[in-house]
């Protein structure tokens, strides 16, 4: 299995676990809030969520590439080529499409009058799905082929 596939799988799992943990943590914090306090609490949640995703993605890459280096591979010096760039392009397209659709759904939920809680929950899900779209595109690109 390609190293980038391993990183994508590990990152996807990490992101999913981080999302569930932070979502449960945040749910109890926002339960009784309203107005500006609700927005501020969700804002902090999004910062924690996205920062966690970035840190976990970097740690996943470090872990996999360190293992690769120990087993005699190129490790962090592994070069990229046209196929990698092609797959990265696919991943960015998937990210853009999922982000756009998710944001649209979030806005529709808000417009339907389902409330700020539902809107922020949908936005949080959007962040998760957009991140997962990148990793799934990597897995498909490297394992199934282009």
């Amino acid at each position, binding site marked *: 299995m*390609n190293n980038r596939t391993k990183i994508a799988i590990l990152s996807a799992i990490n992101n999913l676990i981080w999302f569930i943990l932070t979502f449960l943590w945040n749910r109890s914090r926002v339960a009784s809030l309203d107005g500006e306090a609700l927005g501020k609490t969700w804002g902090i949640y999004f910062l924690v969520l996205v920062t966690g995703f970035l840190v976990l993605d970097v740690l996943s890459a470090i872990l996999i590439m360190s293992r690769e280096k120990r087993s005699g591979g190129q490790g962090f010096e592994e070069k*990229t*080529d*046209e*196929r990698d760039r092609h797959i990265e392009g696919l991943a960015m397209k998937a990210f853009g499409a999922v982000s756009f659709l998710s944001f649209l759904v979030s806005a529709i939920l808000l417009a339907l009058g389902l409330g700020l809680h539902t809107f922020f929950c949908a936005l949080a899900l959007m962040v998760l799905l957009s991140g997962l779209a990148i990793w799934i595109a990597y897995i498909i690109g490297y*394992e*199934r*082929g*282009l």
Partner: protein
Amino acid sequence: MAKKTRITNKIRTLRFLANEMTQQQLADSVGVTRQTILAVENGKYSPSLELAFAIARVFDKSVEEVFAFEDE
């Protein structure tokens, strides 16, 4: 299940005939990773024209002698 491209190739045979050249040696010659050569050989990636010409040049063949487009 891997998605096969409609581009077939004879890279594996040509490597064998070229003193059993390894995938890594071919990859180094054309400036890509071994994983990309593996994907091209297995029909999981259609190389760019530039890469196809570079691979053909390593074996001193024309592109048509290395790659073929499968009709449906």
